[in-house]
Structure formats: C-alpha cells, structure tokens
C-alpha cells in the first residue's frame, strides 16, 4: 500500500488491461458485475473518476466495462459521494434493465478483441492522468 493517503483504482472485466494498468481489480463477470463491485466501494467512500456510461455503447452491445475510482483514506468512511452514487446506480439500473448483457468472449474473436481495445482506448487518457497506466499498449486492432 502506498504511503500517501489516497490512491486510484481500476475495476474492470477487460483482460486487455492486465499488465497495462496498475491497481487493477479484474472481475470475472459481466459489465453489471463491474458496476456492482464499484458501487460497493462507493458505499464505502470511494469516488468515481470516470463515468460508468463512457462510450456510446448500449448495455447489450459492449461486453466490457472499466471504472476508475479514487480512494481517500483520510476521509470519513461514511461520507458517500452523491454524484458517484447516483451515476453508478443509474448505470446499474440501465444495465440491469437490459435484455441480455453481452458476456466477455461472447462475440467472434476479432470483434471481441476490438471491443477490448476500444474499451481500453476510451480510458487510456484517464489511466495516464491518474498515474495508473503501465507499459505502453500496442494499438493495433484485432483484425
């Protein structure tokens, strides 16, 4: 654990992030599982850095979700960030109402790899700004 009183975390079900992002909690599950894990942290005082709705994808389209969160250990555990809570709940509602969530590896390999890549690409700047971007990722699509 770092000595500073705060840190950034990433919760994701996108295997493309493995080795590329520090403080990564890789979830074995669908997008809703990622949102649920994030929500549980928000209930304990973590805050959202990135919007859970990022990317113009519908819940039944993009299988991957990546959330960047901020933990301030000096803060009171009970102080829930309302904006984060509202956003994550809205996102869970929207994903929960979806007809059928896409699962990782649901699509043909090439398309699945594109989904992984775009998920990563949309978050790349945020990872960098939060100092959790690891080695540079190759940016070639899965064709």
């Amino acid at each position, binding site marked *: 654990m770092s000595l500073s009183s705060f840190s950034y975390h990433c919760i994701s079900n996108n295997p493309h992030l493995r080795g590329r992002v520090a403080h990564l909690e890789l979830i074995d599950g669908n997008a809703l599982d990622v949102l649920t894990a994030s929500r549980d942290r928000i209930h304990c005082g973590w805050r*959202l*850095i*990135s*919007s859970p*709705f*990022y*990317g*113009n*994808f*519908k819940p*039944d*389209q993009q299988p991957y979700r990546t959330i*960047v969160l901020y933990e301030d250990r000096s803060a009171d555990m009970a102080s829930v960030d309302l*904006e*984060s809570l509202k*956003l994550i709940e*809205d*996102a869970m*509602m*929207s994903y929960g*109402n979806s*007809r*059928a969530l896409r699962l990782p590896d649901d*699509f*043909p390999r*090439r*398309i699945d790899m*594109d*989904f992984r*890549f*775009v998920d990563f*690409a*949309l*978050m*790349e*700047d*945020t990872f960098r*700004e939060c100092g959790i971007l690891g080695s540079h990722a190759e*940016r*070639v*699509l*899965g*064709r």
Partner: protein
Amino acid sequence: MRLELIKAHVKGVAWGCKTELLKDGTLQVSKEDLLSQIEDHEFFKSVDADMARPGENTRIVPVKDVIEPRCKAEGEGEVFPGLISDVTSVGSGKTFVLDGAAVVTCGRIVGFQEGIIDMSGKGAEYTPFSGTMNVVLVFEPKNGIEAHAYEKACRIAGLKAAVYIAKSVYEAGAQADEVKVYDMPAFAESMNAYPGLPKVAYLYMLQTQGLLHDTYVYGIDAKKILPTIIHPNETMDGAIVSGNCVSACDKNSTYMHQNNPVIRSLYDRHGKDVNFVGVIITNENVTLADKRRSSSYAVKIARMLGVDGLIISEEGFGNPDADLIMNCRAAERAGIKTTLITDEYAGRDGASQSLADAASEADAVVSAGNANMMIDLPKMEKIIGFTDYVDIIAGGFAGSLKPDGSIEVELQAITGSTCELGFNKLGAETW
C-alpha cells in the same frame, strides 16, 4: 462576419470523364480523378467508389461519415481548416455548396461498426441521406494498421473527396441556383441590436470520449479544449468535423455540422423573435472532473455574454446525458432559460426511462425520437459496403438478418435517424 453560401442544386449523380455539374443538374464525377485524390497506400489496401441515388434499391453499410461537398469561392482560408487545409479562421467571404449531394464514407474501423443508409423502403424514411445524391467511398485497410491512424485516414479521405468534387465543379464554371447570406456582427454591435428581443445563444455539445467518439475543431481534438466561442459561420465552412463512428442514429456526421439546423433555425428567427448572439462549443468527456469543468466553463461564457436563453444540443446517449443535464441545471440556476434537444433510449417497448439523468430544471425538451424503436428493413438488390457486420451493429442482434434478406434493427443502426441537432421531423410522445 458575413458568409455567402453559393448553392448549386444537384438533381442527379453519374460517373463521367470530367467532374462537373451538367445542365440538367446532374453531378458528373470522374471516378479516376476522384480515386487518385484520395489514394493512400500507407493505410488503404483498396479504395473504391460507388453511387447511390434516392429511390434506388440500395443499402450503404457501415457508414462512417457523410460530408457535403463545399469549397471556398472567396475569402480567407479553405474548408475543413486544420485537417486538409491551413488553420486560418474561416466563415467569411463566399463558399460554394453542392446542395443535394453528399460524400458517404464506408469503412470498417472496428468489427462492431454500424450505420445504415437505405435509399428506399421503410429505412429511407428515417435517414436524411436517403434524399441526397451520394458518392460513396469504400475503404479497406492494410493489415496491422493502428486504429487511431486508420480512423484519421478514412476521415481525411472523405473530406478530400468532398472538397475535390466541389472545387472541380466550381472551377468548371458551375452557376449558383441560390445564394444564402449569413451575417452576424461583432459583439459590440450585436449585443445592442434588437433591444426588445431576448438574447439567445446556442450551446453546442460535441462528442469527445475517445477513439471512435471524437470531434475535431480546426483539427484539434475537442476533448482537449476548454469550451469556447465559435462564430456560427465557421461551422458552415467545416470548422467542426466528425471523427465519431459509433451510435449511427445520433452521431453528428460532418454533413450535420456543416448544415447545423439549430444554427439555421436561430438565424431564421434572428431579428424577429430572438437576438441570436453566438455559439458556444463544449465537449462530452469521460471523467467527472472534466464534465464539471466544461459545464461550469461553458455556462460561464453564456453568462459573460449575458444571454437570456440557450438552446443546448447533445450528441450521443448515456454518458453525455449527464453533461446535458449538468449544462441545463447550471444555466437555469444562473437565470438563463434553456431548451434541450436529445433523443431517447426508452427500450423497444418505450417503457424505460429515456435518459440516464434527469432534472426538474429540464422542463423544455425536444425529443428526436426513441432510438430503440424496432424497424424492418427490406432486402436490397444492391449493397455498398459490408453486410456481414449487420448482425452485430448497434441495435441488431443475432438473427437480425432474416433468410429472405430483410433485417430487423433498432432505429439506432440507421445513420442520422435521431439526430440531436434537430435535423429531422421525428420525435416521440407519451402514450
């Protein structure tokens, strides 16, 4: 700043040996010259061109962008500044427009890409580009091309093609069928004009979330800008270009940016019902801090302008719903009255909540329709592009391609169908 749009009306499109506008209004294009303009051996394995006319039994898929052929006839700069021409500011002088024609780019950046234009049938009722004479470019990338670079190559090729066509036609001596003048004076003057009318500005939200979700202003990636003021005439000269490839229904193609209907409508009412004083562009980013910064900054500009009213248009859904509501709330709390334009994701049955966010301040909303509505698209005789992606385009699902060749999709898959600039007549109501 004063801009004249010199419009030549295009009534047909055909291949020929020279690119020019024929007497009967047919846009004749030299395929050879066109392709030589956009060849790029570094990125494209192949580039092909085709045509699609209103009423034809043709489907174009997957559409990346649509561009209206324009070029400068007089005045500073050239269209699409910062991308295929110098960065000098545009928006004054004269611009030649091939009204009724469009360049459609069709290229697969990623495997899940979407965007259908049907030239006839049910789907044609929902896309504005079933009514234009389309020159379609079909790209295939070389192996191993980096995604961002390939998106850019396709984007640039479309712009080049549009300028090439407009310029060739103009230089071949095409005459104007119609001239439209757009004039908005300096702030010092405009703020005092029409003292009895409310001052109104337009808050123009641009999709800027990252790869496949980007918009460029004078060549700059708009996710990196602070909200700023742009002259409405600059948009007519292609200062804003789409790099957005997802969510076909509500992405603003470059054509929509060139022909922004909100700007057109505000100009129409200028001096009669409102005093239209300016356009503020802002972005739709991924992080909450960026959202708050942009929203607060954009509304601050509106306050500095001292406007009474603001039209706010969104691009995309989900993530930008938060920006839209944030912008609305901030403006209303600053005493600026707002009207929003958005589309809806109310589910196939229309029973779900339409937006990912809501606020009681958002009491004046124009809807561009429910993008989840299902529609049946008949089989087409001719396909331009690649249909094997139809099954996985947004709104589609396994089996959406039926044995008889017809497809069942959500409106979301159709290019420009629920445009949040208010381009179309489509809307929604509560039943």
